[in-house]
């Protein structure tokens, strides 16, 4: 299945610069958010959002889902 992924903030540097944090991944039907995090080799703690709703990393993705990942941060 295809999943649209958007990486925000520092996470976008996990992809080549010209992609500006946006990509489409082809994943097995059983893929979870955690699998995407692992696939993109993201080591930082993240918060996930699918189609505008906050989800857990164990969330099982559906075809054509739009996944957004944010780095969890403290202050600022």
């Amino acid at each position, binding site marked *: 299945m295809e999943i649209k992924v958007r990486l*925000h*903030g*520092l996470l976008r540097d996990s992809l080549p610069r010209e992609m*500006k*944090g946006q990509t489409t991944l082809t994943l097995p039907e059983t893929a979870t958010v955690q699998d995407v995090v692992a696939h993109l080799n993201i080591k930082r*703690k993240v918060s996930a959002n699918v189609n505008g709703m906050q989800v857990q990393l164990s969330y099982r993705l559906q075809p054509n889902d739009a996944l957004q990942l944010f*780095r969890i941060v403290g*202050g*600022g």
Partner: protein
Amino acid sequence: MRYGYNGKILHVNLTTGELTVEEPPESFYRKYMGGSALNTYYLLKEMPANADPLGPDNILALSVGVITGAPISGQSRMTSTAKSPLTDAIGDAQSGGFFPAEMKFAGFDAFIIKGQSSKPVYLWVHDGQYELRDASHLWGKITGEVEAILQEELGDKQIEVAQVGPASELGVRYGAIMNMSNRANGRTGMGTVMASKKLKAVVVRGKQGKKQFKMADPKGLINLAQQGVKELPESDVASLSKYGTPEVTGYQQAAGGLPSYNYNSGVFDSWEAIDGTTMYDTILRGADEDKQDRRGRDTCYACTIRCKRVVEITEGPYKVDPYYGGPEYETTSTFGNYCGVSDLPAVAYANQLCNQYGMDTISCGATIAWAMECFENGKLTLEDTDGLEVRFGNAEVMVKLTEMIAKREGFGNILAEGSARAAEIIGRGTEEYLITSRKQEAPAHMPQLKRSIGLIYAVNPFGADHQSSEHDGAYEGDEPEYPERLAMIGLTEAQPPLSLSPGKINFALKTQHFYSLADSVNVCQFVYGPAWQLYDPEVLRATITAVTGWDITIDELLTIGERRVNMLRAFNARDGIDREQDQLPAKMFKKALKNGPTAGLKLDRAEFEAALDEYFRQSNWDVETGIPTRHKLTELDLAWVADQLNL
């Protein structure tokens, strides 16, 4: 042998023009360290109770700390403390840049400024020498112009200038002290106090001081500095390096904690237009030639992180000169999502106005957002606003009001008082929309989501502040991210999200003591902290030991932080301020948030009052009044403060 600090404090009486030097003993520095604790010591000792914040009795203390000037990240900070004309309580604000280190190199650890001059003056301190000079020709000028004139006048491009802008001169109650024309001691109106004394600027230069800076263990210090350089890329502050504080915008949005439309919602649909990556891609200096990392990032003295934003806009209605730096997260929030404004150049331009005229961007942007909500609800009309449509999302009006506040023109003259006083002036139920604690506008971290931050907003002696304790997320959930670091300050039992349990309150209190220490040693809270920062509490201890030679423990350091909180609280108690003023905005209890993950959330009054009880109990303060007890003050070696309070 004295290491790290000068051992000299300059007392300035602006009424008489007298300048005297005090040389306190080593024990004084070890007890108070510098910064806010040292400043508050002088305010308590030398200032009468119930002083007029804008009168000659108020004391403005400016100080650095015992490690300021050491070649390691995060040490170049200066604290300003005085009674606040915004909150009518103790005021306190920090800034970074190169001024703090240069102040140390110029030969002094603190300037204690009293009285009121009859004409504008500036204080010129260089290589241990000091004098007051006429500043009549500088009065009324914006920050960049003043710096240029002073560099010419003193024949030195390397001087550092901390100054007030025209907004402070006109009595805007949230005037900032600006250094480098882009670093602000922003909160609580410390610039307004300085201008009320007719002190336009403090100018420092230490040609020899840098070479003569002595440390007990230079090799140990260099090792700690190099450790930071090595660990930065994989650390949680790597994002601050590249995208700056505005990178936090995305996560705040995702969590529903991005205060929008005057704190009515935790989400802002257009957040991406004003976030750190958009700034990096569009207006950060060098973006057009892909050289942002070299040209768009500035730093504080000896800091490896280089988080400071430098933006440049050469076309369109909002031209921005990189000389005035760039907006941080709090600024993109208050002028952006608070106001429903998604025009990044307009936000950057409002930031520039604040830096030129010397105003706190948080209070300024939040006051405008309050006016917008009043207008949207018909509490303000075009007659009140000089014909301006003060509506959410109107970038042009947001910029116009910023300028009108800075110049105290028309409706801006009322907003210059801050939103709490403006609501008193206007009436008509406009207080319903306030987001103030102790008359100070809340920063961009939401108590509805971060419950312990909300508690600290209420009890903090100088009003709502997001840099006075660690944020809740670090101590929530089944797998907290920084257990080793938090354990260093005695925090080992993470709490459930959204809780205000005794364990969470203990987290608020202990981290408040740590952050309070940070504001006394005067270190950056992005560099040294108990969670996501570059260095942990143990490295802070080791840094202080390497610089000063003091065999010090983390417990002793936390006691200094606790001592400072108790002194601040005692200062307010002398002026009759007690638990009754420890409040959060009524709006946060009455109105549930709209939209996003935090939709429906509001605060509970009973839970909040119980949290206050518990916080005071854990502080060993009187639960009924929230005033420190003699027992606690004596334990902190502050019996003389208990005497002042007649305890």
